[in-house]
């Protein structure tokens, strides 16, 4: 067991190094430069050269990579765009995105699984078909479009701003109002973010459930005369939810991986907008650090999923 973990961890480490080297090459070799993105006749080429030097961009690529790592671990990594410590920039965003995604995820999981089971139980009934229709609608409707409609509708209905994380003049708010205000601003974006996930996951649960209820032990349980609910929720559901563990593995990186579009539409100051701006500005330190963090989280998520499989499914052995 211990040997398995060690080997697995070592593999993870190698993968991580591979990912970071590869991303470094791709990102720094892509066309464009972090300096002088616009054409300004008042800026002479010598100045640009000097700035490239200040940012170590004149060095060979392997040295740049090494310098990035060194600065990252000594806490001296600064963004090209505004000269702030990269980790500070990421830290200030990550919680905003986490909050939003956490709420969205809770909505998704608490609705999708019951919905999926319900549809599976009444396969091809009117309600199931309605669910299928709704799910496809949810998957295929572009999120930004839904978002615009919702924002328009809400503003029309309540005449109250919905953009951003909070109302921006809150000095005369009481604590309760402050909390209400935050919830109000959380509501729309988390609903929009949840719609796609909800549609997907409920379909997933449904099909997984349908597969399980066709199996022999379910038939046996029914034949024994167990009550329906007992069969479905106690025996079938547990097995049907096994594949969901895989989704759980992806959940961890997803929670902090912001949605660029939604964060832009709702003016939400999250990690998605930060990384998008960093890519546009060729802010290599920020882009690389965000990529690496999500790589680590993906790997950790997979690792946890592996372990959870072992716990949840007795058929799996580590060797």
């Amino acid at each position: 067991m211990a040997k398995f973990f060690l080997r697995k961890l070592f593999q993870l480490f190698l993968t991580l190094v591979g990912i970071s080297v590869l991303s470094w090459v791709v990102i720094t070799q892509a066309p464009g430069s972090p300096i002088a993105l616009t054409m300004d006749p008042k800026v002479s080429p010598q100045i640009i050269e000097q700035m490239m030097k200040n940012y170590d961009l004149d060095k060979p690529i392997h040295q740049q990579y090494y310098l990035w790592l060194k600065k990252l671990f000594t806490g001296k990594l600064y963004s090209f765009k505004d000269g702030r410590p990269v980790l500070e920039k990421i830290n200030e965003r990550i919680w905003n995105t986490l909050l939003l995604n956490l709420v969205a995820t809770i909505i998704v999981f608490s609705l999708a699984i019951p919905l999926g089971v319900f549809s599976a139980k009444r396969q091809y009934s009117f309600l199931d078909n309605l669910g299928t229709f709704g799910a496809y609608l949810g998957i295929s409707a572009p999120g930004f479009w839904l978002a615009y409609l919702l924002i328009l509708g809400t503003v029309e209905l309540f005449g109250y701003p919905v953009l951003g994380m909070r109302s921006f003049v809150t000095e005369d708010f009481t604590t309760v109002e402050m909390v209400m205000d935050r919830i109000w601003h959380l509501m729309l974006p988390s609903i929009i973010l949840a719609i796609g996930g909800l549609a997907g996951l409920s379909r997933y649960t449904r099909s997984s459930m349908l597969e399980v209820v066709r199996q022999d032990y379910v038939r046996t349980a029914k034949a024994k005369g167990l009550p329906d609910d007992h069969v479905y929720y106690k025996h079938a559901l547990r097995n049907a939810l096994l594949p969901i563990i895989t989704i759980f593995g992806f959940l961890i990186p997803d929670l902090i991986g912001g949605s660029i579009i939604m964060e832009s539409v709702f003016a939400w100051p999250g990690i998605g907008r930060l990384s998008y701006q960093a890519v546009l500005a060729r802010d290599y330190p920020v882009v690389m650090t965000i990529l690496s963090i999500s790589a680590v989280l993906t790997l950790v998520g997979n690792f946890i999923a592996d372990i959870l499989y072992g716990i949840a499914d007795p058929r799996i052995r580590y060797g």
Partner: protein
Amino acid sequence: MNIVFVGSRPPQRVNQLIVSSIGDASFLNPILAQDSASSEINSFIFNGLIKYDRDLKGFVGELAESWKVKAGQEPEITFNLRKGVLWHDGKEFTAHDVKFTYDKIMDEKTNTVRRSDYELVKKAEVLDPYTFRVTYKQPFSPGLQTWGMGIIPKHLLEKEDINTTSFNRRPIGTGPFRFVEWASDEKIVLEANPRYFEGRPQLDRIIYRIIPETSLSEMELLTKGIDYYGVSPHQFRRMSEISFLNLYSQPALAYTYIGYNFKNPLFQDKRVRHAFTYAINREEIVQYVLYGLGTVISGPFPSHLWYYNPNVKPLPYDLQKARQLLAEAGWKDTDGDGVLDKDGRPFRFKLITNSGNDVRRDVGVLVQRQLRELGVDVTFETYEWSVFLKSFINAKHFDACILGWALSPDPDDYQIWHSSQIEKGFNFISYRNPEADRLWEEGRREYDVEKRRKIYWRLHELMAEDQPYTFLFSPLGVSALQKKFMLVEEGREGRKTYRPIKMEKAGLLYDLIRWYVPGGPVLEK
């Protein structure tokens, strides 16, 4: 307790200005900032020694009470600084701060692109705490405007690494507003500086909201969550119908053009360039691409400033004349295929621009069609910006390109037009005219505004005559502002009179410290 309850709260106080910005600021430090959001905010927190007057023609003192230019082979500018100006932290501002700012800009380790502006400075010295003098290596009148650079405090930055210091996020200046709060990608809050040397601003605070989507800023404007906003051309009609908004417009300090590569024999004949300008219907372009919000220009300057020569009229749209000019240059359709030819070669070329700029793309498509009517076969392509610059523009490997220049209020465009700038500068079309060269040189050596006007008017004529570019248009910048804001003037016995806010050549915000919301400051509703 429900949503509607929260929703019933009025969103704003009256005596403040809420501005929307598409992008967040980067450095609240004038010597490092490059983006427009940072520059605008910096201009409220910091002061330069001087600033442009409201007509963008001369200068008025800011931190400098007065200044004197001593002409000569090595001209000197002596600034007499205002006494008793305080930094927002209470320390007094002196000439040492000016010198410090200059030294920091010139320091190679400082990541600033502004260093080029001061390359002709020979020395900068502090004569006494209230006198600062710069000496230039040669006469250089555009140098004056660079002393509008915001001055940063020596006592706070002396021991800091200017590129990464936390000062850049919590700035201390001398300006009319002082910094309060910056929440990344959300808002930046400034409040009135009660000890400002021109008197406390009338507004209590300014809030910059960062809203990355223009259509959503429009909605915030409707719910009065924003007071001031830069309007895109397609929003203009809708906005002008809103009763509580005033719209202001003015030509931007920028223009869009088609540049012809003089290395290509096709464009070496002046008649061809003239023919193209005649055949390109610029009024139509402004109508369709900018919804009418632009001015057709006849030369390389913005049409509302003092150095634009009003006697030079844009060439009219005249297809007949264009055909005739091309025929004179030897281009005729001899084989009847609808494309002009000369010596057996059809008139065919490639027009390029950068991708991601919708205006330039639309201009390209229209130009392609309009030149097609003339019998010229144009292919139009767009490239990603960095590829576009590196492989085409800087390599001078193109026929014709659509681009734009953003200009400063000073007319010195030496870097764009002088023949010495072909090799490494911005004269990538390889334009060469000895008389123009001489005039560009003279213009930057002359300090007298009237004499400069004559030089630039002549240059304007020359450019119109040579047509190295087809000058297309200056876009109109449009701002929407809530009607409740007024300009306040202290009359006799402290009586306040209110006047409507006016667009100045130097911008709507020129008189910001006198903006006021009559009836405030109470909660709205």
